[in-house]
């Protein structure tokens, strides 16, 4: 009762994220306080004990992420939320979650960096860190909400993807959205799709924890299920046993990456506005996409055929769609709240020259700033 707060609310993004987690079935949350993600912890400290869940405030983010992986392997849906400095501390164990295929959700409410930077200022400066921050070859899934509603919806989706692919999934929000108040509609429980990890069906003595079928995602036995599995961050074979051979490394790393790469088209999510006939394609994500849409509309009023491609998944990156759309364009504009990160990915995929509109220091782009770039790109 009362686990999903069905109805209309006027709340901030961090609150919506916390409620999305509970609606998704999250029953373990661990974190260390940090602006601008603290409100997620505060909401969950209040809510989790009332729905049979556990909230633990850790001594640091290294501990928080390690406990989340432990709880995930204990069969729970588990989440942590932090900002850039906390992610920097978590990176080694994010690799452990990838390597041991522990489903979990990591929320980064981004703030200005590097280092302690601007704690209360929104930014989009960690989008490459989330892709490449942990060492070794990995694939990552990352979602970028643009509204309070999406803080709720995409948190649920992040859990579903993590359970489906047995991999950590990032929710890449920022201070502006985390602290923004907007209306939120929480649907009836029946209206929320929930995905749970596949459990092994094989006899206990025959279970191999990392043996997979066609989809490359192994069914997951958890602590207490009686399978007596062993898992390690070392390169391992299908039994989970360490294997230092060239073949084992090749096989495992390929499978871990390919389970996501091969399904990239299915995972990728974008939203398009006026892209049917656009001459200038604007690419944006998160809060920036809201200004970008205004800019596109302003451009249209002035007779410039602009369109918007909003990235909802940052990773996997929708290369194919960008290539396809930009082929028929004159120019491309990328706006993001950093000094040049995802723009390089767009440049790699785009068939036309890219105008970049950086933004540093709290305030999202003004539509006029993006409009000016659209005008330059359209020439």
């Amino acid at each position, binding site marked *: 009762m009362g686990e999903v707060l069905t109805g209309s609310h006027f709340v901030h993004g961090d609150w919506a994220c916390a409620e999305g987690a509970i609606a998704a079935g999250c029953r373990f949350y661990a974190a260390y306080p940090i602006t601008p993600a603290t409100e997620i912890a505060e909401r969950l400290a209040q809510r989790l004990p009332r729905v049979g869940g556990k909230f633990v405030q850790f001594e640091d983010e290294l501990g928080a992420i390690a406990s989340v992986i432990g709880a995930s*392997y204990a069969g729970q849906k588990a989440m942590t939320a932090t900002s850039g400095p906390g992610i920097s501390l978590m990176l080694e164990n994010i690799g452990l979650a990838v390597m041991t295929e522990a489903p979990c959700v990591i929320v980064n409410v981004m703030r200005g960096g590097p280092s302690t930077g601007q704690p209360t200022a929104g930014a989009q400066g960690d989008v490459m860190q989330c892709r490449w921050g942990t060492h070794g070859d990995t694939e990552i899934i990352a979602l970028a909400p643009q509204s309070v509603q999406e803080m709720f919806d995409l948190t649920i989706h992040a859990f579903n993807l993590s359970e489906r692919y047995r991999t950590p999934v990032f929710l890449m929000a920022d201070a502006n959205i985390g602290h923004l108040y907007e209306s939120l509609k929480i649907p009836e429980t029946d209206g929320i799709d929930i995905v749970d990890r596949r459990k092994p069906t094989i006899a206990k003595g025959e279970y191999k924890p990392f043996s997979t079928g066609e989809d490359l995602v192994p069914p997951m036995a958890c602590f207490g299920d009686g399978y007596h599995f062993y898992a390690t961050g070392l390169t391992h074979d299908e039994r989970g046993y360490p294997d230092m051979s060239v073949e084992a490394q090749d096989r495992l790393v390929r499978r871990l990456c390919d389970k996501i790469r091969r399904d990239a088209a299915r995972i990728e999510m974008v939203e398009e506005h006026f892209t049917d006939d656009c001459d200038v394609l604007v690419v944006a994500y998160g809060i920036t996409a809201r200004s970008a849409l205004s800019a596109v509309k302003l451009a249209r009023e002035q007779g410039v055929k602009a369109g918007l491609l909003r990235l909802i998944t940052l990773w996997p990156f929708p290369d194919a769609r960008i290539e396809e759309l930009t082929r028929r364009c004159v120019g491309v504009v990328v706006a993001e709240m950093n000094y040049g990160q995802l723009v390089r990915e767009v440049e790699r995929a785009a068939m036309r020259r890219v105008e970049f509109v950086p933004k540093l220091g709290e305030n999202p782009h003004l539509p006029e700033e993006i409009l000016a770039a659209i005008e330059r790109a359209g020439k």
Partner: protein
Amino acid sequence: MSSLNYQSSKSLRVDRLPHIWCQGCGLGIVLHAYADALQETGLDLDKVATISGIGCAGRASGYVNTDAFHTTHGRALPFATGVGISRPEIKPIVISGDGDLFSIGGNHLIHAARRNVDVLVICSNNFNYGMTGAQFGPTTPSETKTPTSPYGNIENPFNLVALVASAGATMVSRWTVMHPTQLKRSIKRGLIKKGFSFIEVITPCTTGYGRLNKMSPIDMMRNLKKIGKIRKVLPTEAICDPTTEIVLGDFVDFEKPTYNEVFESLTQRAGVAP
């Protein structure tokens, strides 16, 4: 290895033997004591999770026939905390090394003890970072020569039992691998105890520490037997100096509510949703 016929064979993952440890290393004795203790307490092995960090000692989790997880360097305790708090019916056991638990993972150790997480920690102390080649660590005696202290260690070692006791542990013991009976008895008590329990096991790193200090494996074992003194003292008085005296025994054993028990009462206070 189907010929293995110890009583502990049910609690060992026999298809993974032989283990990786050097000849003369004491870590096999620690594993054996743990496996026997698991067997003798008659715990439901389905409800035990063996968790370790990185290092020679941390490899122990790979040889135990329970659910087991080999985490990253220093993070076994927070991982175990996540397991034990999210599923209170599971007993997490952390087996790892002195460097893993007290250097890179030191902060987690004192906080897990402070929270009184229901976990048993078995710390194999070989006075160095064995796996990376015997460099000095937080337990290495002052003046000891190691590859990274070629002129002698200028730092001071921790006394692990004093540190853990002051952080709030409800059970604290120290033995050496030359005291396997007492070690097993303490492990058995720790397995069934509710709360943060800590057992330090002094064990020789024959290849690293031993070779560098010109001690043969047999010398190292004999030395442990000679300088190990069982005494009823306060943890702060339990000297641990491999060159003079190592005080052994059960130093702390009391009850206090565990994190999970306190959380349970918080749940009652919080009421039901929303």
